């Protein structure tokens, strides 16, 4: 018989850096989940992505066991990393802070595909380009 799910916890944690400190400790601890085991598993599975913030959805079961899935980092984080941008524009329509190429957009879109509501790379690229524009980044043709 399938185990009963008692809740979900949505966290965003730097890859390979999980510790029992907040937000992990209080969020998992109050549901009776073994924090140390989560940290061990999360760090082992994300240590290839050091430097990125990884969204993770933890499913907690009635016996206090858990499973989790990691998602791709937010597009804005990937865009900043791709073009080595420190921060987006405060006035994206007026002040442009950088440029991103179609190849970079494609690379980010490919990475984000599993988490987007589309199976078309073109649609995913269009979403990533939209995010870039909203940060004051010029999308090169």
């Amino acid at each position: 018989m399938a185990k009963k799910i008692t809740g979900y916890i949505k966290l965003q944690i730097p890859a390979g850096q999980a510790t029992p400190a907040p937000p992990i400790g209080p969020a998992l601890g109050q549901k009776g989940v073994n924090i140390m085991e989560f940290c061990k598993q999360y760090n082992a599975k994300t240590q290839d992505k050091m430097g990125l913030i990884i969204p993770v959805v933890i499913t907690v079961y009635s016996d206090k066991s858990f499973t989790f899935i990691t998602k791709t980092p937010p597009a804005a984080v990937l865009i900043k990393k791709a073009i080595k941008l420190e921060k987006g524009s405060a006035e994206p329509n007026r002040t442009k802070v950088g440029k991103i190429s179609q190849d970079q957009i494609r690379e980010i879109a490919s990475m984000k595909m599993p988490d987007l509501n589309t199976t078309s790379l073109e649609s995913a690229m269009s979403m990533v380009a939209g995010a870039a524009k909203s940060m004051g980044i010029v999308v090169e043709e």
Partner: protein
Amino acid sequence: MPATYFVITLKAQEESFEHIFSSVSDLEGFLGSEEGFDELKLSFSSSEQTEPSLTRWLTALSQELTDLNPAWEVTWQIVSETEQNWNAQWEATIEPVIVEDTFCIFPSWHPAEKTYPVMIHIDPKMSFGTGYHETTRLMLVMMKNADLKGKSVIDCGTGTAVLAIASKKLGAGPCIAFDIDHWSYENSLENLKLNLPDGSVDLRFGGYETISETEKADIILANVNRNVHLQYTAWYAGRLNPGGTLFLSGLLKYDEPEIRKAFISAGFTGFKVFSENEWIGIEVRK
């Protein structure tokens, strides 16, 4: 002194979260966030952030979001939180763990019903090493298959000190254990006292640097993770006596090729791989 944290509860529209993550990801001391309905809880280490600087960042963020979309409103509250044993609720539920019919790891609040050859009394306090995880069990399996009698041991990242205690109970000689985490250090002190009141384990607070270049061992135990193993490959080679054995854990099956390549380059031989579910333990010789 217990660590403290700043936790910001940020009320904002979900559509703006991506921009918030993008902005917060570069801030010093950012530990992560928890997402709720139109709410984010952002956590920071207070040793790397101050309340005034977080307030300045929030004020700028609020303006940025309003510029992007006038409908995006942000309100926030900053509270300071002191660390505590957040794992206590889970720890209260643990039961004795039997490994290979040899080791029995049990807490004070749930004694074992029968006696096993190696009884290990562990009262964990937000430290790793209760026997509940594959990586600890794999280490114990490898240790059981080795002859530890009279051998000198170094236990890297000792956690609850479960492996250091196991090694002594298997007859090991001098044992040094270290951990960089202060909860683990304090908890190791307590567990060592419960199991080895003679003080026969030299426990140190800190990382790999706590072992001097002249301190060598016949056995090194290291249940950490792949990146740490790769970073300290030369360290392991330098601290092992000739013919010594290194037990590595904290590894996933797909980590094996990279680990094998690095340790062969460092002169290690005799690879033995043990597995449980998706995790592996590796035994190598110098």
